């Protein structure tokens, strides 16, 4: 790690103190392709050393935002600042940003060690220095023995680690990751998530991480932004976004949610509101001040209590079990509410002795007002 955080004296533009990550600021940035706007005016600040994730479906603009920061996509309007300097006019090769690509983009014609040494070579480092720093970088990603191989001879996970080492070996203050784990299978992906998290903590760089996998983003990110239709829909910590989604889109993009449409606002009491749902239920729920329209009540499956625990809660109903499934660690129910509001998804931790309810059974369900949150329409 020492070698990686040692600053090097080559090139004024590339040389920056690297004890901490870079500060990134998108200032009213947008991107049009002719008539088509792929990124609406977007402002975003990322703190030094922060791991910030952009999530959203494909075409939501997250790759455009990343491309603008990397310098591959010139923004139509706006400024992008790294440590206060607008870099819109700076070509990618002078931005001193590290990047891990979705398909790794390793150079197939040179060895793993040469791949990792490439950015150092471009910075005019001497052979001896390159050799030493490549060796340390290989050790850091635990590929010491494979330096002489070609990328094609490595497994997907190994290639991923080479890409990481190559992006970090020159100690950039900012690291971009474009769906870096997209091509790996599930087990390997989880292992690499741990590795990336450890790596980022040790390395101290600011990371902008693009993914469409919400679990990955929630696990890795300090903060994340959900993107949709070329706009930032909501920004916050993973927990904030999960527990206090502003919109239907965010609520359903991050984890599971049952939504009950609101027909009428009955009253307000501090942070809480009383609403009547379209199906005729009277509910109490949280009303975050950020949300102006209260169009639906969002319920996370693990926040709904079942059976004896449900009685005496702020919201308490008698439901009918429609579907009951055991999945590892969890009992998963679909429970029909009284009235016409439909079906709630409920998850209860499965412990020995807790019986799986049978479909057709009537059951108490309930939740406190603080367990439900009102959100805007879409």
């Amino acid at each position, binding site marked *: 790690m020492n070698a990686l955080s040692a600053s090097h004296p080559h090139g004024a533009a590339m040389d920056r103190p690297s004890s901490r990550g870079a500060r990134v600021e998108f200032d009213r940035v947008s991107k049009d392709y002719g008539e088509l706007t792929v990124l609406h005016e977007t402002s975003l600040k990322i703190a030094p050393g922060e791991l910030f994730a952009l999530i959203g479906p494909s075409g939501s603009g997250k790759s455009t935002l990343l491309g603008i920061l990397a310098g591959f996509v010139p923004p139509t309007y706006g400024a992008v600042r790294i440590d206060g300097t607008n870099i819109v006019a700076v*070509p990618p090769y002078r931005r001193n940003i590290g990047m891990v690509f979705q398909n790794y983009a390793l150079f197939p014609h040179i060895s793993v060690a040469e791949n990792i040494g*490439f950015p150092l070579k471009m910075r005019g480092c001497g052979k001896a220095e390159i050799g030493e720093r490549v060796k340390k970088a290989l050790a850091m990603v635990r590929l010491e023995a494979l330096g002489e191989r070609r990328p094609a001879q490595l497994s997907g996970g190994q290639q991923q680690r080479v890409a990481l080492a190559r992006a970090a070996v020159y100690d950039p203050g900012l690291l971009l990751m474009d769906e870096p784990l997209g091509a790996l299978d599930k087990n390997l992906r989880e292992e690499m998530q741990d590795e990336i998290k450890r790596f980022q903590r040790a390395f101290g760089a600011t990371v902008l991480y693009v993914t469409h996998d919400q679990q990955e983003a929630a696990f890795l990110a300090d903060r994340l932004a959900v993107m949709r239709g070329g706009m930032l829909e909501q920004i916050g910590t993973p927990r904030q976004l999960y527990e206090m989604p502003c919109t239907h889109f965010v609520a359903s993009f991050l984890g599971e949610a049952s939504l009950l449409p609101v027909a009428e606002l009955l009253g307000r009491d501090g942070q809480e509101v009383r609403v009547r749902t379209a199906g005729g239920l009277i509910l109490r729920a949280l009303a975050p001040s950020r949300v102006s329209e209260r169009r639906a009540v969002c319920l996370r499956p693990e926040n709904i209590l079942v059976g004896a625990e449900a009685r005496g809660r702020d919201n308490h109903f008698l439901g009918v079990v429609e579907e009951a499934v055991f999945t590892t660690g969890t009992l998963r129910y679909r429970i029909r509410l009284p009235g016409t509001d439909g079906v709630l998804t409920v998850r209860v931790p499965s412990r020995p002795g807790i019986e799986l309810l049978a479909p057709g059974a009537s059951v108490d369900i309930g939740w406190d007002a603080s367990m439900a949150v009102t959100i805007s329409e879409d």
Partner: protein
Amino acid sequence: MAGKVAGASAPAPGLAAPRQRAAAWSPAKGGLLLLALPLAMLALFFLLPLLVVLGQSFTAPAGPFDSYVRLAGDSALRNALTYTFQTAAIVTLAALVLSYPVAFLISRAQGRWLVIGMVFVLVPFWTSAVIRSYAWLVLLQRRGVLNEMMLALGLIDRPLRLTNTDIGTHVAMVQIMLPFMILPLLSAMRGIDASVLRAAAILGANPWRQFLHVYLPLSMPGVGAGCVLVFISTLGFYITPALLGGSSQMIAVAIEQQVSRLLDWPLASALATLLLVLTCLLFMLYERLNRRLAGAGEAR
């Protein structure tokens, strides 16, 4: 064949099963049948004539190896051989230099521009070399299009001698060979992943270094294939040097001369054999080099 073996080794399932199996079509059998006709064609019209030529080269009246001895002693023929290889080298190099940027541009083109680019490469490719050689004759001759144009523009006072010179032959040969260079280059270039170049850029390589350290090495398979194709094809050029050539002879022209004017079939056969052997040697060298380069990347 596989069907029979399986049927015979099946112990109990009655008699019907092997019979059914035997009737089944086997790709191995069918493949051989499909190959029979082209193989027969090749044997009859390619291998046999080649063997005849080889045999004929040993039938000189003064002894079986006389043709080869004379070939070694004849400075004109040796010169023709040197000139042929020299020409092939020049044409290959010129074609490479001209083709690389063209292939690069076409490889980057999309939609309509891609079609237009390909048409410009393929239409000459599909046009007979004889026709193109004549076209060059029309363009380059004393009162040809090029000379007339330059005279009219006042660039020159007297027509330039462009035909029956090395330069005229080389220009025509390069033009005929361009598609053979462009197409392999194009196929290599279109296979280069754009994200690899982006990676080079973000890692600190300016456009020139992106080209030098990443693009050029990744396009080398196309360069190799194109050069071999053009070099070997140029070795056998006949019609273009025959029409446009100067005092120095290409080997194919020399062979034709031995056959039709001097009626020295054994010597012509010896020349042809020598050309074939040298071409094969070159190709083997290329293959070995190629395998060594690729082997460094694929060896497990």
